[in-house]
């Protein structure tokens, strides 16, 4: 009888020190050292805030919702089993908190863009402006960040939520679908529309209008 040679596949995974530290902090916080919770959420502060802001579109409400979501996470930290990443779990709590507040406050009376086209139909780009390069320093400028935030605020919430979770929070399609309680196909369709709508809104500006008017750039110096 022949002997089957069995190859042992030993996979050595690189251990991320930040992840190890997060796991250690998680273990200690779940063990009762709740004062360490801030250290645990500190790397995700901006993500949590941006998720809340993207849904609520108001700084004060976003901060309130973000802090409330983080405190809820602290209260229920014992229920986190590590099935998902801690950041994903935190994001889901934040999205739920923000959605709940938005429903409660009925703050959205008008949705300026997105409802004009049915979700099932194709989206036709309105603008074909050439937008090939992004200046690397673009995001360092406050007015550019404001333009981006304003463009996103123009999306109707069903597109904005998917876009935020996928492209800002970097959740997977499955995670996004689960967080919002919609199907994978809906996530894909809404994401496509959100991206194309934002491109329509931003391409003309990034394609030249916003940057051509800037002083002291090449070709526009006053001397």
């Amino acid at each position: 009888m022949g002997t089957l040679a069995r190859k042992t596949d030993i996979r050595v995974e690189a251990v991320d020190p930040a992840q190890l530290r997060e796991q250690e902090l998680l273990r200690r916080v779940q063990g009762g050292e709740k004062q360490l919770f801030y250290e645990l959420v500190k790397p995700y502060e901006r993500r949590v805030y941006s998720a809340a802001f993207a849904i609520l579109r108001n700084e004060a409400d976003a901060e309130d919702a973000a802090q409330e979501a983080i405190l809820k996470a602290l209260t229920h930290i014992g229920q986190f089993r590590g099935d998902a990443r801690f950041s994903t779990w935190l994001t889901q709590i934040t999205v739920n908190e923000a959605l709940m507040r938005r429903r409660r406050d009925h703050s959205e009376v008008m949705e300026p863009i997105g409802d004009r086209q049915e979700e099932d139909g194709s989206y036709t780009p309105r603008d074909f402006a050439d937008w090939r390069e992004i200046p690397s320093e673009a995001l360092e400028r406050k007015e550019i960040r404001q333009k981006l935030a304003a463009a996103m605020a123009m999306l109707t919430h069903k597109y904005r939520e998917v876009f935020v979770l996928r492209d800002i929070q970097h959740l997977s399609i499955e995670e996004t679908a689960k967080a919002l309680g919609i199907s994978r196909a809906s996530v894909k369709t809404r994401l496509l529309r959100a991206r194309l709508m934002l491109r329509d809104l931003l391409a003309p500006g990034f394609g030249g209008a916003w940057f051509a008017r800037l002083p002291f750039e090449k070709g526009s110096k006053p001397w």
Partner: protein
Amino acid sequence: MVVSCEHVWDEISNYVDGEVDTALRAAMEEHFKGCKHCTAVLDGTRNVVQLYGDDRLFELPAGFSQRLRRRIVQEASWSGFRSARSLWMLAVAATALIAGGLALGNSALFRQPDLRSALAKPPHGVPASLMVAVCGDGKVFHVPGCKYMHKHDDENPRMMTAAEAVREGYAPCVRCLRQYLSARIECPRSSPPPPLVAVQLSVRNATSNFKGLN
């Protein structure tokens, strides 16, 4: 495989995410080579994904971190206090339960059996070992020698402890043991109850006339 512009727009987001199959990817890439508009849409879509995926996009409001940290510290302290309080309350409740059980067990003396007199007031706080006297057909117990004890001339009062008397349904005499009644009986003719020392003195005097003890 040839794809139209409309097909490209429908799939462009999946293309950016790497969610299209090999054949469609190849067809789309071929399409981009000859379509300026679709190339512009592709570049713009990639730029949107890149810009919004950058952490620098959303600035935290000034003081956000400090306020968050403060709230977490407050919540953690309050949570610790709640847990400690719960433990303390549990301990106190358990102690009270045990003490209550013991007290109930020891207070069998004061569980009221059916009193011999329906009108009598039940005793309250009478020392269990106090020696008292009862008569055969009486309904109350007395300090030995109490002049209000109804007894026949030839009868010797029965001596027992107050605990035994209570168990047998006797009630305290409203005169010599009135301080041990659960509700005072105000008799217009009677003087206020004497202090305990006075009671003891009167008992001492009374015992000299008490046949059973002499």
